[in-house]
C-alpha cells in the first residue's frame, strides 16, 4: 500500500472511531441534577482536579474521589466535613453549606456514573 493511501485509510478510521467515541462509545444512563451541575462548576472553578482525580484525571496530592460518596471508610458526611473544614493538605475553601452540598451532589453523580459499567 502506498504511503499516501495508508495515511488516508488511517485517518478515515480515526475519524470514524472518534465519532463513535464521542457518542455511543461514551453514553451513560446516569443524568446530572441541577445541583450536581452547580457542583461541577464549583469543582472546575476551584481547580479541585489539581490535587484530586476523578476517573484517573487530575493531580496526585490528594486522594481519588471517584467513589468517595459510597466508600465504606469515607461517605458523604465525611466528604462534606472535609469540604467545610479542610484538612492537613486539603485547603479550607470557606464554602457555604449549600456549596458543599452541591459539590457532594456532583461527587455522588460521579460515583453513580462509575458503577454503571457499559457493556
Amino acid at each position: 500500500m502506498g504511503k499516501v493511501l495508508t495515511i488516508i485509510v488511517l485517518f478515515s478510521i480515526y475519524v470514524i472511531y472518534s465519532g463513535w467515541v464521542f457518542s455511543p462509545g461514551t453514553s451513560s444512563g446516569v443524568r446530572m441534577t441541577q445541583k450536581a451541575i452547580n457542583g461541577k462548576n464549583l469543582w472546575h472553578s476551584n481547580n479541585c482536579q489539581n490535587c484530586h482525580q476523578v476517573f484517573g484525571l487530575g493531580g496526585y496530592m490528594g486522594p481519588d474521589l471517584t467513589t468517595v460518596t459510597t466508600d465504606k471508610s469515607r461517605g458523604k458526611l465525611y466528604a462534606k466535613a472535609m469540604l467545610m473544614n479542610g484538612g492537613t493538605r486539603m485547603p479550607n475553601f470557606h464554602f457555604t453549606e449549600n456549596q458543599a452540598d452541591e459539590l457532594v451532589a456532583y461527587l455522588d453523580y460521579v460515583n453513580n456514573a462509575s458503577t454503571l459499567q457499559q457493556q
Partner: protein
Amino acid sequence: MLQHYNSNSMKQHTIGYRFIVLGFICLLLSISFGLIASLQYIFPNLLADRLSFQQTRPLHVFLAVNWIFACVTGIMYQYMPEVAGKQLYSPLFAKVHFGLMSLTILIATVGFSMGSFSGREYLEFPPWVTIIIIAYWVLFCINFLRTVNPKLKGAPVYIWSWSVGLIFFLITIVEAHLWLLPFFNDNIIRDVTVQWKANGSMVGAWNMLIYGTAMFAMERITGKKEIGHQKTSFAFFFLGLTNLMFNWGHHTYIVPASPVVKEVSYIISMTELILFVNIIMKWKKGLLRDANDTNPLAKRFFMSADRWILLNLALAIAISVPYINQYTHGTQITVAHAMGATIGINTTLLLASVTFIFENKLKDIGKKIIIAGLRTMNVSLLLFWASLIAAGIIRSIATQQNEYFSVMTPKLLPYLRSFSVFGVFLVIGIMAMSFTYLRVIIGADRHSVKDEIGQSVPVTSQ
C-alpha cells in the same frame, strides 16, 4: 560528506533563536515552580497564601509544555529554510506567531498566579485563550506548508512527522475544548474520555514534531540521507501515528465507557515506542560508525535520550497492562511516567537539537558546563524518577488496604523528600545547561543582526 551545521546560512534564523530563548525562559520558570510544588508536598503551609500548590502545579506543567512547544517550534523555524533550500515564506507570520505565543504564556501565567482557572487538567487557562493559540498555530502551519511545500510522496520521514504533528495539534486542541458543549459537559463519562483522548493524542502530536527534528539532525550528523527514505523508517512512522490516534485509551481503563476503547488501546499500546527505539538504534549505529565526528556533544544527548526511551518504554508498557494499571493508576507512578518522558525523552531530544545548532559556537568552558549539566541531569533524573515510583508503590499498597489518605501520606514522605532533593540537583543541571545556551544564543542573535545590516561575519562551514 559530513557537514558542520551552518547556522549562518540563512538570515531569518533570528526568529528560530527567539523561540528557543522563549522556550528556555519557560523551562527555567517551570522547574522553579516544580521545585516549589515538590516542597509543598513536604511543607503543606509553604507559601500557602501567596503561591499555593494550586497555583504552582498548573504553572509548572503549563510552562513545561510551553518549553517543549516553544523550543521545538524554534528548531523547526531554524531547519525549515534548510530543508526547503529557500527562505522562510513569511518572516512576518513567524513574528506574529512569536508575539501571540508569548502573549498566551503571559496571560496564562498571570492568570494562574492570580488563581484564575478553567479547571481542566493541563489546560487550566480560560477557553478563549485557545482562539489565540489556534491563530498562531495556523500561521505556523501556513509558513511550514509554503516554505517546505511538502510533496509527501518523495519526502523524507521527518517531513511526514512534522506535517502530522502540526495537523494533530490543531485537531487535539479543538477536541480538548469540546467540553464547552453541554453534550460533552453534561455526561462525565464522555467528558473524561474525550479529555483523555485529546490530551493523550496531543502528547503524540508534540512527539511527532520532536522526533522529526531529531531525525533531521541525525540525518545531517551521519550524512546518511537514505535512512529518511527507507521502508522500515516509514513502517515505524505509521506505527507511531497509529499509537497517536488510538492508544490514549490506556488512560481510561477505569472509565466505564465501552470496553472496546480499552481493548483497542491495549492492543495498540503494546506496540508503543518500540518503533522509535528501533529507529534511534539504527541512526545510532550510523552515528557511532562516524569517524569524522563533527558533533560529539549533540551525539551525547542523542545517546542519553536512547537510554531514557528504553527505560520509559519499559514503564509505559508495564502500566498499559490493565492488570498492572489497576494498581498504579492515580499514584506517583503515573507522575514518573509523565516526567520521565517529558524530561528524559522530550527535553533531552530538544537539547540535542539545540546542541546540534549551537555546538560550533560553544567555547571549551561552555562545552564542559554542558557535559557536567547533562551528567547531573541524567543521574538526578534517575533517582528522582525512582523516588516517584517508590512513592507510587507505597501509595498503591496503602490504597489496596483502604487506608485513610491522611494515614498513608506520612508513609510516602521519605520518598517525596528524596524526590525533592534530587529535584534540586535536576534543577541545577538544567539551569547550568540553559544559561550556557542562553548566553550563546543571545550572543549569536546579536551577531546575526550585525550580519543583516551588512557587516562581514565569518561563516563557519566545512
